[in-house]
Structure formats: structure tokens, C-alpha cells
């Protein structure tokens, strides 16, 4: 009956989201009076999960699972959920988790609520709060099936440490050829850059920057802060920046701790996409830009003067606080 949580790894290391979903699963398990079992695939070391409330880790080692494969991973989790008789399964909102979750939901005949932002309001009936209308609203959803699948929004719950150590158990689910009818032929990961999905700070540029040649300072600011770079929709549509950087309603959602918008006026679709970010800084030369109404901190000024100065100030700050 334990709460099952899928703790993701990258190159054998647990991702930060793994600790967040584990913390959340612990909260649900406390409500239900049960414990947390995690599933980790090809992980080097899972001991840290104990610190976030996991009691047992099912470790799966299988070379066929070196590349992520949604169908096969969903099969692993299904078999783990059945083995543990889990009634609640928790996954993250990573691209991979969102890929496997609907497959898993059908295989477990489970209702699935994605983009969940808080612990269940009640466990019977099982009601969770999630974002809807691309962060323009919240929606309380009741999952009415016996088994429930919860997809937790990134950075919505945070990490909750507790005392404890996790035991491990080797788990060898039986996988069949039908799990591998879609094959990865190549993976193209940008190296040396922080992905928007994992970033705690995002620095974003808009049309106010006048052209792709002016992105050097955006990248430098991102470097100083260890941040990801992003852009508004017009900027990606004009081909100044790749689509993968487009944040907003039809692009990527951003749920970072800090979002810095430079030369972005703040169209409603853009605001929806970044609304889940905790602190927003807006730099714009137009004091009437609608983005200021959605910001926590605003600077009215020419980005080409403000940003280079801000970079210098932040370098000083970093040097003094290293």
C-alpha cells in the first residue's frame, strides 16, 4: 500500500526533481498512514533518498533502459506499483515523466492529475490542486479511480528533509519486445548550458533587444547567475533564438525561483507561461509595459545600459559572497 514515487536519474545520478517528488510522496504517505517506496533506474547511488522520506528503493539495473523509453519505463513502474499494491503513484513534470505518465495511467487504470501544486486537500475523496489555463487559474481535481497518479509541478512543493535511511531492493521487472518498438537513434543535448526545465534562475530576452547579435549580454548575465537563457515568442518566431528557448503559453512553462525579463513587454500569453516563477524582475525602457504589473522588482531603463551594469554588480556580489 506504500506510495510509489518515480525518482529520475541522469547519467546515473538522481536529479533534483527526484528529491522534490520524494518529499511530496512522503507528505501523501503521512496523510494515508503509509510509507514511501521509490523506483530508480540504473542509478549509481540512491542513499540520499532516505533523507527525503523514502523508506525503500526498488533499484532497477538493465542495460536496455540506458536510454529513456517511455513505454518500457511505464512498464517498470506499473510492475512496481502492482508489487507494492500502491494506490498512489507520484511522478515529476519533466519531459520524460510527462511522456510516460499517460501510458502508466492506462496500464494501471488510474486517473491522472498533472501539474499538481500542493498536497491533496483531502485523501478521501482524493482531491488535488493543479494549474490550468496555463497558470491563469487553479483547478481542484478529484481523482475517482482506485489507483491515483499524481504529476507534481516543478518547484511547487520544494524539498522537505526528514530523518531516515532508505533500504534498497533489487527489482527486475520482466520487459518484453513490445516495450521497445520505439527506439532512440540519437540524443542531442546542449552541453555547458542549464536547461530551462532544471534552472533555478532564468534570464529571458524580448524584442526590445533589437536583434540576435545583442544576446551576448543576456548570455553573460545568465553565466554569472548560473541561469538558463530564454526568450519571448516573437524572438523565436523571427528566428533570433531557437524554439527551445521560447517560454509562454505555446512554448515552455517556467517555474524558476527567479525570472529576469529584459525587453519583454509582457503579453498575456507570455505572463501565463512564466507565472509559476517565484520572483520576477523586469527591465524595460517603457514604464507602461504591462509586465511591470506582474513583476516583483522593476527597472525602467535602457537594457543596453542596465544589463552590463547589472552584470558588473553581480560579479562583485559573487566575488564577495563566494
Amino acid at each position, binding site marked *: 500500500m506504500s506510495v510509489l514515487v518515480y525518482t529520475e536519474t541522469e547519467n546515473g545520478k538522481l536529479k533534483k526533481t527526484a528529491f522534490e517528488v520524494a518529499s511530496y510522496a512522503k507528505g501523501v504517505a503521512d496523510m494515508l498512514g503509509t510509507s514511501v517506496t521509490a523506483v530508480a533506474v540504473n542509478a549509481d547511488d540512491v542513499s540520499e533518498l532516505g533523507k527525503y522520506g523514502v523508506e525503500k528503493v526498488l533499484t532497477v539495473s538493465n542495460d536496455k533502459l540506458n536510454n*529513456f523509453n*517511455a*513505454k518500457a519505463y511505464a512498464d517498470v513502474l506499473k510492475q512496481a506499483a502492482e508489487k507494492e499494491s500502491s494506490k498512489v503513484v507520484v511522478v515529476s513534470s*519533466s*519531459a520524460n515523466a510527462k*511522456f510516460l505518465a*499517460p*501510458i502508466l*495511467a*492506462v*496500464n494501471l*487504470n*488510474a*486517473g*491522472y492529475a498533472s*501539474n499538481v501544486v500542493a498536497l491533496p486537500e483531502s485523501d478521501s475523496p482524493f482531491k488535488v490542486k493543479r*494549474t*490550468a*489555463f*496555463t*497558470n*491563469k*487559474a*487553479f*483547478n*481542484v*481535481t*478529484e*481523482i*475517482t479511480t482506485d489507483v491515483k497518479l499524481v504529476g507534481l509541478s516543478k518547484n511547487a512543493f520544494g524539498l522537505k528533509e526528514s530523518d531516515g535511511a532508505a533500504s534498497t531492493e533489487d527489482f527486475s521487472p520482466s520487459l518484453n519486445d513490445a516495450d521497445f*518498438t*520505439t*527506439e*532512440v537513434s*540519437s*540524443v*542531442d*543535448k546542449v552541453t555547458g548550458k*542549464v*536547461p530551462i*526545465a*532544471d534552472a533555478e534562475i532564468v534570464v529571458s530576452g524580448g524584442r526590445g533587444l533589437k536583434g540576435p547579435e545583442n544576446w551576448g549580454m543576456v548570455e553573460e548575465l545568465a553565466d554569472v547567475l548560473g541561469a538558463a537563457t530564454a526568450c519571448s515568442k516573437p524572438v523565436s*518566431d523571427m528566428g533570433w533564438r531557437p*524554439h527551445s528557448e521560447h517560454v509562454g*503559453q*505555446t512554448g515552455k512553462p517556467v517555474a524558476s525561483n527567479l525570472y529576469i525579463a529584459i525587453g519583454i513587454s509582457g503579453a498575456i500569453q507570455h505572463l*501565463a507561461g512564466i507565472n509559476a516563477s517565484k*520572483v520576477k524582475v*523586469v527591465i524595460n525602457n517603457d514604464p507602461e509595459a504591462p509586465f*511591470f504589473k*506582474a513583476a*516583483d*522588482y*522593476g*527597472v525602467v531603463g535602457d537594457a543596453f545600459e*542596465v544589463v552590463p*551594469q547589472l552584470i558588473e*554588480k*553581480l560579479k562583485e556580489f559573487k566575488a564577495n*559572497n563566494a
Partner: protein
Amino acid sequence: MKILVCISHVPDTTSKINFTDGDTKFDTNGVQFVINPNDEFGLTRAMWFKEKQGASVTVVNVGEADTEPTLRRALAIGADEAIRINTKPTDGFFVAKQLAAIAKDFDLVIAGRESIDYNGGMVPGMLATLIDANFVNNCISLEVEGQTATAIREIDGGKETLKTSFPLVIGGQKGLVEESDLKIPNMRGIMMARKKSLDVKEPVDGGNATKAVSFEKPAPKGDVKMVSPDNLDELVNLLHNDAKVI
């Protein structure tokens, strides 16, 4: 190649979002409905397959009669025929079961990765699993040769190329085609759309797995704190000491 494109009928991206009936229903008053943007990228890619590879394109929506203008618009863009499954789309699992009842007849099903209203992001993957088809989510490129397909999907921090085969369901998004490739229906398309078949089918049995209980809007935001461009030390200080984000 027979292609089915799943179309959600959603509020335009500029819509103000409000609720009625004690915050239990979306307020459609004054709201313009459109083809879900993620579905429109998929529909446009389907048109490409029609033009270049002779595919036939059927569009489907699970919804009541008020969604028909959205289906007609898809026909005006160039789809060959439309199906409306006559029921309220109350839950992702339920919608996937409705689509599964007709999707078996198609080689390729193109849906958007999520609708921009409920953002459930589950219908394409559920549909694929129900009809035992291959599935690629967050798909940003799709090429087809015979019964096999090469798809590129966006992953966190990059992209991944996948080899797969029919039957195939994809959850598509921008990248399948560019924004500038999207088609605005012309008068001829609109006239022709009136004559195309729009078949209304009754729903199959299939219970809901979730229920939307209520809605709420985010709490209003506090005032913005303005910092002078001549005093950026203050901004750094605020971000460090007050907001504690650096």
C-alpha cells in the same frame, strides 16, 4: 496513409479567464474559441503529408455542437472530412476512450501535446496505449517513409531522435511546422468546407477517472518595487536579502 488529427476547441490565448456557478465552470461569455495551438501545428503538418505524400486527413473533436465552427475551420484549412463525437469532454481518460473508438482505422494520429485550457497533457499518450500504438510526445519534427517514422522530440535541455512505426500517435507542438507555416483559411477553403462531410457520432461507454471540482484564480499580486537604473546595487541587495533568490 490515413491521418487523424485530434482537435481541441479552446479559448483563444488572449482570453481573460473567469469562472461562473460558484467557480465550478469556465465562463465562456465573450470568449473566442479557436483550434488548440498545439493541434494546429499538427494539422498543418498533416496538410504537408497530404500535399507531398498523398495522405488523407480526417479531423476529430470530442465535444457538443458548439464546437462545430472549430471543426469547420479545420476543414477550411484543408482537412478532407471531420468527425464530432457528441459528448462533453469532461476528463482526459474519457476523451482518450472516445478517440480510441475511431482511431483504429488510421495509420497516424496527430494530437497536440496538451490543450491550452486544462493542460492535462494526457490524451495522446492514453489514446496510444488504448489502441496499442507507438507514441512520441513533445514531437517537434516528423518524417514518414512507408510504415516507419522518424520523429524528433524535445527533451529537457535538448532533443532526441526516435525511430518508430505505424500505428503511431504523436503529441505535437511548435516545431512540427513553423508559426509562419500556419494557414489562414481563404474564401475558397471556407466555401469548400461547407460541403465537406462532418459526421456526428454518439459516444461510447467509458467512465471518467477524474472530476474537475472547482476553479480559482491566482491571488492578486503585490505591488512591484521599482529600482532606479542608477542604483542597481539595491536590486542585487533586494534579490539577495529580501527575495533570497541569489
